[in-house]
Every structure is written in structure tokens, then in C-alpha cells.
């Protein structure tokens, strides 16, 4: 079956329930389905993008803000529907909150939490950053720097 919006193979079949007696069937390829589900302009979608809370959400400054830990911009999330790292929930908290409210009707976790005391969030983000630097160091063959970074990572991991 072909996608209704382009010529690719349709791999996702969505049954939208529009109202009392209305059902809309959609057959889409992966990427069109993604757009359908995340595009804010769609009239009906299972997962809606945040409702406009003023003009600021579409401002380039906001869309281009970048997570210092993993490097994704908010616009990347808008395009792919996937966040880049755990820190993004802090970094883009303001933008994500209306979205979470829309999906879940709530914005605060209630339920199970890890029994073991988690390392501080700072340490976790630090580790992601150090790993990124380590990769860059290795790529530019700065092995001394890489060795130092590796030691620092081990130290944090063991703490």
C-alpha cells in the first residue's frame, strides 16, 4: 500500500477517532506519519504539538536554543519528535511543559522511582559532556587530552 501523502510504502496505519460517528483511516509512510503526528497545524492528531502559548514558541531564538550537553536544538526535537539526552528535559522544560500537559494531562511524575540513590543530575550531564569532548579529542588525535578526559570519566563513573 502506498502512502497517502507521497509515493513511499505506507508502513503506519492510523485510525483517527474524530467524533461520535466519524473515523478517519490514514495510511502513511514513516516520515509522513511523523509529520502528521507532530505537525502543529494538523487539525487532528494523536500527539499534538504544544498549543500556541503566544508567539514566542515560533521565534527563531527559541527554536535555535541548543542543549549544551547533547547539542540538539529545540527545532530538531520539533522536526524529529525525539529528544537528544536526559538533560533536555531541564534545558527545554519551558517548551516541553505544555506538550506534556497535552499528552498526559499532567506534568509531574507519580509512581516508581529508582531505589538506588541516583548520582546527581549534574554528574550525569557532566559525563555526557566529557564523553563528547573525548570523542572530539580522539578525532583530532589529541591523545594526551583524551587520556585526561578518560580518567575524569572513570573517576565520575566510580563515584
Amino acid at each position, binding site marked *: 500500500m502506498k502512502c497517502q501523502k507521497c509515493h513511499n510504502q505506507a*508502513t*503506519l*496505519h*492510523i*485510525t483517527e*477517532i474524530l467524533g*461520535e460517528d466519524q*473515523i478517519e483511516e490514514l495510511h502513511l509512510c514513516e516520515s509522513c*506519519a511523523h509529520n502528521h503526528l507532530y505537525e502543529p497545524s494538523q487539525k487532528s492528531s494523536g*500527539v499534538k504539538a504544544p498549543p500556541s502559548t503566544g508567539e514566542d514558541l515560533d521565534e527563531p531564538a527559541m527554536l535555535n536554543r541548543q542543549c549544551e*550537553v*547533547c*547539542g*540538539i536544538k529545540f527545532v530538531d526535537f520539533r522536526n*524529529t*519528535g*525525539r*529528544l*537528544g*539526552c*536526559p538533560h533536555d*528535559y*531541564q534545558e527545554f522544560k519551558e517548551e*516541553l511543559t505544555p*506538550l*506534556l500537559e497535552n*499528552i*498526559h*494531562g*499532567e*506534568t*509531574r*511524575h*507519580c*509512581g*516508581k*522511582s*529508582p*531505589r*538506588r540513590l*541516583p*548520582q546527581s*543530575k549534574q*554528574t*550525569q550531564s557532566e*559525563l*555526557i559532556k566529557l*564523553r563528547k569532548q573525548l*570523542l572530539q579529542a580522539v578525532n583530532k588525535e589529541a591523545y594526551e587530552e583524551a587520556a585526561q578526559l578518560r580518567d575524569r570519566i572513570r573517576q565520575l*563513573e566510580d563515584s
Partner: protein
Amino acid sequence: MNLDSLTHTSGEWLRGSGPESDIVISSRIRLARNLAAFPFTNRSSPGQKAEIEALLRDRVAKLDLEPKLGYVNVPTLSSLDRQFLVERQLISRELAAAEGPRGVALGPQETVSLMINEEDHLRLQVMRSGFTLDEAWQEIDRVDDALEQRVTYAFSEEFGYLTACPTNVGTGMRASVMLHLPALEYTKQIEKVFRALQKINLAVRGLYGEGSRASGHFYQISNQVTLGKSETTILNEIHSVIPQIITYERQARTSWLRDNRQGLQDKIARAHGTLCSATMMTSEETMELLSYVRLGINLHLIEDITIPTVNELFIHTQPAHLQKLMGASLDGEERNAARARYLRTRLREAGASPN
């Protein structure tokens, strides 16, 4: 782990036993978890994915589980074997199609499956036959606790377990129950059920999960919300609605029998007859006809076939299973012929044996 040994068997979830198993095929729970110190899978470099895979694989191997889990390194599998695992519901289509280091740890009964480097670093799944959400929860909770002793999950007090997609954040839990609802579909009451479920934030999907069409009159009912409700609350919500759907399906079956017994008997006998004698059979037609045979067994209109046999045939006639059973790669037409032959043999065998 040798996948070929699985070919002739089927997983525990198809056993056809457990509470309400005439209508509830299986209960399944999955948890999405990520390591705190790595970017999510989609942002991880190939090197990082390798690190994540090695680390989780090691921690999973050290789990104190009896019996031990086997490990399957997904990139080394042929596309046929990947499809085979998807058909058995042991891995997701996403994991099958992804790139880079990834794998799955499987229990021998196929009730436990731990996917590594799926959309999230770790996707834990427990699946059991019948209406057994509580047992499934106890098992997955135990595995999750044991793993959590050995790795640091990405977790925040505010948002719970942090996931790559915000639709999973919080508990990271998706609980689903797979139902066989031929009578509700026949009487078109199924749409009413969908609408009622939608109102209470439960999703309805086909046999193969997200994006799949409902075939063989199988439907998966699952929770939509993962944030702001505890696991127990979510499970209770599903628990409270399933018995109602079961009642509706039973009522629809009863009135179908009462109002048009001959018509229904004929439909079931024709489905059985076609399966026993056709020489070409598509996957879609097979699902539809097996569904009526399954209904016939539950209504005692067919006596010589058992539910586990029919359940198994639903999976064994899927494209990858069929090709592994035949030991050859087959194109569409060849598959239709092989499928028809396989069905004839299995159903005649069932008819010939005393049980």
C-alpha cells in the same frame, strides 16, 4: 542463542491458557529506560552505541534470573531472522530496522525480552498468556529493580524516567492486553468500544502494535498516559475496563448464536473447510479464516482443534516463520502455496488425532 530452535515452537503467550483466555490472548507490559550518562540512542555515535550495548549486555548477563536469558546480537542476524523475531513479538519493528550495535536478551519461555538500543537504551518487556497483567507487572518490576542495582537510569524527581520521546516519560510503562473480538467486529459494535476507550485515554492497536492494522480480529488495548499516574493506577484503569469488553464480546457471541446460529455455523465451517483444502492462501485471508476457526472452537462448534494449535498457526503462517519452517526463501506466490500446504497438513493432523 540459536533462533532455529524456536521455529517449531511458540512462546508462552500463545499457550492459550490463563484467565479469560477464550478472549484475552495475552497481557504485555513494557518499560522504557535510559542510562543517565549517555545521549539517547538517536543522538549516540556508533562508538557510544557500542559502549551502551556492551555495558547493558554485561549487566543483563549478570542478572540473577532463573532460567538465564539468552542474548541475540541483532546486526548479525539475517533480515529473515529479524522479521522472525518481530513476528514472535520478541523485538519491535524499530529494533529490527535500526542501525548500529543493538541486541535483545530473551528468556527461554519467551516471556521476557530486553531490547538494547531501541528508541530508548533499554526496553524491558514481559508478555504472558491470558489476562495476567498483575503477574506481568510483578515480573517486570523485579527485573527492573535488579537491573537498577547495576546501572544508573536517567530519572528526575519531576518527570520520572526520562525517555527519548516525551510520550513515554514518567513511568515509561506501556501495558497492553490483546483481545480477540470477532463478534464485536461482526456486529460493528467495536467502534463504540473504541470511542469509549478513547475517552478514558486508552489506545487501541492491531496485532503488531503501533501502526499495524487490526487483522484476525485481534486488538491491543493499552494506556496512552505515562506521566502523572502511578503504575498501579494505570494498571487498575486497564483492569477495570477489560472485563466489560469481555462481557460485551460474550454477549455479542451469544446473540449471534441465538439470532443466526445457522449462518454463524456455516461461516465457521466454510472458514475451516477453506483452510483445510485451499491451495493458495494469503496471510490476510489466513488471519481472517483462523479467527473464525478460533471462534468456532470457543463456541464448541469445532471440536477437533485446540486453541494452542490455532494460536500457533496465526504466527507460523506469517512470512518469516513460514520460510524458516520450509527452510527456504520464498517469494509471495510461493509463500501463498506453502502457507496453504502447511495449513492443510496441520489442520488435518489435528483432525486425525484424538485430542
